[in-house]
């Protein structure tokens, strides 16, 4: 394994971590539109908190996919063709929520609710099925000598992956709740705090079940025992921190903690995978390795230079945009009349 191959394995992890940290709360807020808001003004208020930023946050996923294609084409090809129907569902979720922002804004009153629901349902579908995908991936999939999946229903949906899907759904929801507490005022903010208080207890139960299933159903403990345990502790630790800070009213720290919980989950997955990118359940020798899955050194060099030149700018204007939109969103005082 060359340095550049390792670097790009890490970078793919960073991109997915960035995606879950940033777009994670967008899904949470999207779900909250139907579960936390009580009326139209509150729904508008919630959507307004992510309105200017969600699109750029989603680009982290696009970039992660594109970077995976560019740096590990064999990983990309096997993973994406192997999870054909799961990805189709994820895409459908991304599509209905992606248009819902513009469509709900421009729709007449009678149809606005359709797009509210599209936003909420799409926002639930994406993290749940991404959880199913990533967690069943670390469980191991029936991959043949050519890198092709031959998976059946229970390869995709088993105890581990379903718990993983629910855990990711809950994590993004709580991340969104923390974001709402950070970015709003009024009754919505109060309700977000109450929700967080209650939901964190469910999350702990979920995390414990997930940790146990992970230890017994994957080879993570055999391959990377130290890293696995550290990351599992960090996941729980950041969850506790997030809850404590929510109680204390430190919304920014709570929000960052719930984001870091998601980041830790991604790191856990990437540590457990290393030095593989896909785990074959048929035979370890069919597992796809970092060193075999990557592009050539030349392409990786080109990509590294391009990333070093461009990423600082991306980060700079992203931070600038968040700075411009740093203010809290109050409930619109005058309901929109159409």
């Amino acid at each position, binding site marked *: 394994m060359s340095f550049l191959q390792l670097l790009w394995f890490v970078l793919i992890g960073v991109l997915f971590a960035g995606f879950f940290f940033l777009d994670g709360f967008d899904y949470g807020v999207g779900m909250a539109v139907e579960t936390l808001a009580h009326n139209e003004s509150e729904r508008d208020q919630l959507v307004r908190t992510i*309105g200017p930023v969600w699109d750029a946050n989603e680009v982290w996923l696009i970039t992660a996919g594109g*970077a995976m294609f560019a*740096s590990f084409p064999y990983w990309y*090809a096997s993973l994406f063709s192997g999870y054909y129907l799961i990805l189709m569902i994820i895409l459908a979720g*991304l599509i209905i929520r992606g248009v819902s922002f*513009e469509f709900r804004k421009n729709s007449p009153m009678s149809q606005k609710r359709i797009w509210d629901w599209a936003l909420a349902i799409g926002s639930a579908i994406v993290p749940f099925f991404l959880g199913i995908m990533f967690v069943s991936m670390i469980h191991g999939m029936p991959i043949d000598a050519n890198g092709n999946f031959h998976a059946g229903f229970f390869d995709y949906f088993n105890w581990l992956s379903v718990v993983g899907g629910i855990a990711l759904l809950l994590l993004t929801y709580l991340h969104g709740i923390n974001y709402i507490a950070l970015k709003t005022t009024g009754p919505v903010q109060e309700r977000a705090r109450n929700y967080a208080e209650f939901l964190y207890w469910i999350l702990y139960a979920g995390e414990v079940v997930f940790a146990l299933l992970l230890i017994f159903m994957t080879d993570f403990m055999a391959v990377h025992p130290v890293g696995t345990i550290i990351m599992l502790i960090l996941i729980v630790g950041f969850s506790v921190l997030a809850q404590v800070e929510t109680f204390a009213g430190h919304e920014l720290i709570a929000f960052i903690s719930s984001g870091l919980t998601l980041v830790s989950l991604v790191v856990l997955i990437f540590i457990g995978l290393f030095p593989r990118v896909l785990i074959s359940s048929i035979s370890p020798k069919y597992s796809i390795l970092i060193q075999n899955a990557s592009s050539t050194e030349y392409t990786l060099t080109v990509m590294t230079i391009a990333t070093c030149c461009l990423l600082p700018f991306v980060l700079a204007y992203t931070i600038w945009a968040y700075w411009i939109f740093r203010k809290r969103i109050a409930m619109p005082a005058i309901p929109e009349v159409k």
Partner: protein
Amino acid sequence: MTILSLARFQFAMTTVYHFFFVPFSIGTAFIVAIMESMYVSTKDETYKKMAKFWGNIFLLSFAVGVVTGLIQEFQFGMNWSDYSRFMGDIFGAPLALEALLSFFIESTFIGLWVFTWKKVKPGLHLFFIWMTSFGSLTSALWILTANSFMQHPVGYEIKGGRAVMVNFGALLKNPQLWYEFGHVILNAIMMGGIIIAGLTAFQLLKNQKLSEANKKFYKKSMRLGLLVSLIFSIGGIALGDAQMQYLIKEQPMKFAATEDVFTTTGKHAPWTIVGIADMKGHEVKGNIDIPYALSILSYHKTTGAVTGMNELNAQYKKKYGKNLDYYPPVNTLFYSFRIMCAVGAWIFLVSLVGLIMTREKSKKPLAQRRWALWCIAITTFLPFIGNTAGWFVTEFGRIPWTVYGLFTIAESVSPNVSVGSLLTSNIVYFVLFTTLAITLIWLIVLELRKDPSEAIEPKFKKVLDPFDKEAF
């Protein structure tokens, strides 16, 4: 139904849908940026209204363009995994760069543009829309870099059963890229112009009595739309012609198919206006020819032979050694090409005549010439057809290759995705996209019904509580 035919249908269907909205939003973003520039430099409120009004339509098309584009990045891996393995070393890089350079800029600045009308100074706000436009223009550059490689591979080697990149600069210097990029971008902006002019024409036809402010609004929109579509249609046609000159040399098979040339012509090549290609007998039937015209079109002089498909097929059989015929679907190419050219020429004509009629000196203003307004209004829909036809020429002309001369379509498909899965995804995407397209049209109609002179206020009348503490 085979996995190959279903995967091909899905790719064609989703890219055609996607490309309805891409040039629409590239073009309208560019023109909205021009409108806002006019506002900032002249301080004329009409331009601000225009930027907001047409900006809303841009945003709607952008939203649908983004979500129909999401599929594209995923489906190379999902449906064409063997292609991704063969080409990933080359094809992935422009895609990743598109996300890293263009999509981040586009999506960040569009968010800033939409939500800061009252927050930042006009100059900075103007910067946001130009950055959005810059992002969308460069995204076309990257994806066309990838496409151009498939049409005309450069800067690569075949190593270990896959194509590997040896010269990234060569990918960007690919002449195919610059013809494609120029043609696509000029026509996208032209499309934005003619759509704005066409939708304005619909409004003028519907509302006979307009307030003075609205008259001014529509007149300025019409003139700007037509001016942009005139300028850019000239550019688009010129580059289209240059691209064909290039095709004669680099993709003679594609060129011969667009002109129904089966047998190599004599030195004065006649041009077939209409004809039916007989794909079994490899000849043209019922054709009407104009002598000399193909030589003139191809080489801009009366002499010049065009190599026929039969001769090229024999050459390719020898060169590539595969047990294949290399004829593309000739009738599709032949008629797509004619439709594209007709649409381009018609838009040029309509823009030119329409612009003359909107002159101050014009005896009868355009707003009172109903037939002229109808012509412009109907033209709104034509670029969608023209664009699709243009891509049909480019992509059907590549058959049987995905990467010209290197990798065939049959080799590219994912071997492990079942017919059932593919059928499901075809249906799901078709239903979803059709729903989105219908909703989009409906919302644009609603948007147009609004009175542009009532300032288009953002949704939230009181978004921020000035007495509240800041979040960070």
